[in-house]
């Protein structure tokens, strides 16, 4: 995942060993080791206390604004016929995904918390995509092939 890469690059300041050990204890089921309370709290308040600097937030904010303009521009380009509807759809949705990731990673502190919450987020995304994909054959393709005159009363 791209998020993981990001995480690595931005996390250098953290005391890595403890975190790693913890993470391992959790992933290898059962060999989970009790963590001392102090440590636990230390590491969590660590993430909360020293969030990214205001500069990082501002940069992300600027990026989000630019991306919003960008999607607006793509739409304009489509309307004036410069790019096809398909291309603009792909571009606009791509921009939306990037924006959502930026918000999630920086503003929602996933850059720190990802390894503690990924086990909830990944299934949610997988299931969300799954339901969409499974609905496609029935509701999109199935109905598309119904001849219109079958739907229109004689």
């Amino acid at each position, binding site marked *: 995942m791209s998020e993981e890469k990001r995480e690595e690059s931005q996390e250098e300041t953290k005391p890595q060993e403890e975190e790693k050990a913890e993470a391992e204890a959790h992933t290898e089921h059962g060999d989970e080791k009790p963590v001392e309370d102090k440590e636990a709290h230390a590491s969590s308040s660590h993430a909360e206390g020293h969030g990214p600097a205001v500069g990082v937030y501002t940069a992300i904010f600027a990026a989000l604004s630019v991306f919003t303009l960008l999607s607006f521009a793509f*739409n304009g380009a489509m309307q004036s016929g410069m790019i096809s509807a398909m291309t603009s759809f792909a571009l606009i*949705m791509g921009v939306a995904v990037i924006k959502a990731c930026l918000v999630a990673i920086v503003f929602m502190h996933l850059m720190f918390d990802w390894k503690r919450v990924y086990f909830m987020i990944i299934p949610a995304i997988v299931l969300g995509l799954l339901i969409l994909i499974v609905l496609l054959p029935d509701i999109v393709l199935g109905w598309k092939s119904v001849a219109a005159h079958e*739907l*229109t009363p004689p």
Partner: protein
Amino acid sequence: MAHAVQEEKRLHMGLPIPNGKLAMWLFLVTEIMFFTALIGTYIVLRNGQPIPVHDLVAGMDQDGNGEIARSEARGEIADLFEHGDQDNNGSLSEHEVGQIASVLSLPWPSPHQVHLIEWIGALNTFVLICSSFSVVLAHHAITHGDVKKTTIYITITLALGAVFLVVKAFEYNSKFSHHILPGYVFDRLDGSRGAQYLAKVQAELTEIKEHADHVSAEAAADCDKLLRELTAREKEGLRSLTPEELGLRVNALLEKHPDLHLTPVIPWGNMWASCYFAMTGFHALHVLGGLVVFAIILLMAFFGTLGAQHAGLIELTGLYWHFVDIVWIFLFPLLYLV
């Protein structure tokens, strides 16, 4: 029987995050599922519509076949107006036909048809992004123990959220005034809906005729022509207009004179309105919920109880607020752009 171990250090099992944060993320997971189901419903319903131009054409051309590609259907409409005008007076120019066809062959109402203004959506996106920014700043401030700054940022966030809702309210208002509401839009004209549509447009045209001074001369003339066509065809021994034909005419008129008070035909308009109100409505409810929490935080600040110990609370509120922002980041392009 748990004796002899008091001296052992207190140990913490589980994840190194506070319960509140874990629960908030779980809640957000349920929210992810909620909005995926809602948005997914929209996506599949929108893409699942049988090609609507055939429904409209079907009224005129009983051979309408769902397999025909859309461009062909476009050609059919053009054909119909070009060659099928024995009973048609050839009232539309070829250019107009092209325009109508392009509007009608959209598989879903265009923002323009349903009076959705793109830049307003973009503005609202920007407003929410700003509010997300201010809420992270608030969190940043409170972790540094700066209650005053926190209060200011939370106030800004609250204000921005309110702006979002106000803009939304204006948008809803325009939907109400144009009758773009579930169940009100004329999207299919079969059965009794067709008769209703004929009657409704006739009344509207009559109204325009009576107050001809409210509209431009050209528009009045066009309307008058349509009204006469609607009423007078029988005398001339021609079959009367079908609701579908009338719909095409009205839509063309509206292309030309957008200010006329006429009811257009909007293919899948009811479905559009259903999805639009369900999705934006639930999003707006979430915004409202966030505003309530911000108001509570401000009250705490007002009574002087807000302090660095509330960093967790503000972080959790922020998480929720960012999530609401993310939902809008997807709703905006899906509803307004693509």
